[in-house]
């Protein structure tokens, strides 16, 4: 893939360009999907890994810390594979890698540590997006640093209702996150460190 195409992909990801991201998804998802299915994963795992790997690139582009000397695809595949290996390791499952094409090992090693760190963030985001519209609206405003009065003014709910809703939504979110086996494993690992 040419540098020009790589640049187009990166610009599209940074700008959240749906068409570019969709084409990237269509061209590459099957490959990652077969890799994960071949290595003890499910369809849902493949989607999560694929999306979370794109988030790694997105965040790096946003913070201007993306420094790669390989093609975007090589880098992206390495993130996906590393993410999946990390998750599998957490699940304490054996990885059977029948993949013949070996991705640049140096790239993989350099991103392995970062991946470990942002795994927990992925869990937070995944469950937040499963909350109801009201919960997401209220919590978004809470996380943006708005106080109860401001939130009540924006949403039109009473202050008392907003307060109660905020508590219930946050409690539900924390419970959902804590039930995720991956979160428990990640928590244990970080506590040991």
């Amino acid at each position, binding site marked *: 893939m040419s540098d020009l195409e790589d640049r187009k992909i990166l610009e599209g990801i940074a700008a959240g360009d749906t*068409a570019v991201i*969709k084409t990237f998804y269509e061209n590459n*998802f099957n490959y990652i999907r077969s890799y994960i299915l071949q290595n003890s994963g499910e369809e849902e795992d493949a989607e999560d890994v694929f999306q979370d790997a794109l988030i790694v690139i997105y965040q790096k582009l946003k913070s201007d810390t993306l420094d790669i000397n390989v093609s975007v695809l090589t880098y992206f595949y390495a993130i996906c594979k590393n993410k999946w290996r990390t998750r599998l390791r957490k699940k304490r499952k054996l990885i059977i890698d029948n993949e013949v*094409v070996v991705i640049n090992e140096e790239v993989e090693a350099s991103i392995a540590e970062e991946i470990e760190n942002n795994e*927990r*963030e992925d869990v937070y*985001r995944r469950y937040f997006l499963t909350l109801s519209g009201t919960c997401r609206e209220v*919590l978004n405003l809470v996380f943006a640093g708005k106080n109860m009065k401001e939130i009540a003014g924006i949403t039109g709910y009473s202050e008392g209702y907003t307060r109660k809703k905020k508590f219930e939504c946050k*409690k539900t979110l924390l419970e959902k996150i804590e039930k995720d086996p991956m979160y428990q494993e990640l928590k244990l690992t970080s506590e040991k460190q």
Partner: protein
Amino acid sequence: MERTQELFEKIEGYLAKTLSKEELLAFEKEMETNSELIHEVEKQRELHHVLSDTDTLNFKEKLQKISAEVKQERSVSNTKISQFSYWKIVASIIVILGIGTLLWNNINKTDDFSELYAFYYEPYPLEDVTRGDTANELSEIMKNYTQGNYEKVISELTKTTSLVASEQFTLYLGNSYLNIGKEQEALLQFKKISDTSKYYEDAIWYSALTYLKLGEIKKSSELLTVIIQYDGIYKEKAVQLMEKFKEL
């Protein structure tokens, strides 16, 4: 620790630094003796930190939508492909029966390159390819490919450069050239596929067959050796072909 509205509000006040001096002192004192509270505070601190990044959150949501769209389009396309596949299987059986008979009749007579080529060559099969915005164009190309209208496939694919950027289509294009006797052009296409691609083995296999068709057995053998070392899906065929070469 029981999660109460009061506890959450204290933690939030602590994190937002809005507690009064007295409240803060009392809260910090409680944390000193309560490790569960420390955990809860840290958990909420992280939660606030991660989820306040709305750009990333919106990006994740967009990805989920795109994923759902792609999945839906893929399932529609799979239905179409399975119809194709039926005819592909029927066609393959006819071809295999035909060539098998041919080979049976000629096996002790001549075993030249073109026969070997005809026996081992099968057009690169259509894979599950979908692109929402180019769906019509694509199904037309796929139809022409399955029907053997290779000239049309070439003219369409070379016109649509974005499709040729996909390695899968590079294989279709190479196969199309091969089928209309433009072997050198076919080789150029196959060579475009890098050794890190998942289509690398396919590309090497079709290059080996192209050299066989051209009668360049040495080059073909070299590539077959690569395939054997690769130890993938074409290995068995490559081993057989190498054996046949020795008999020639």
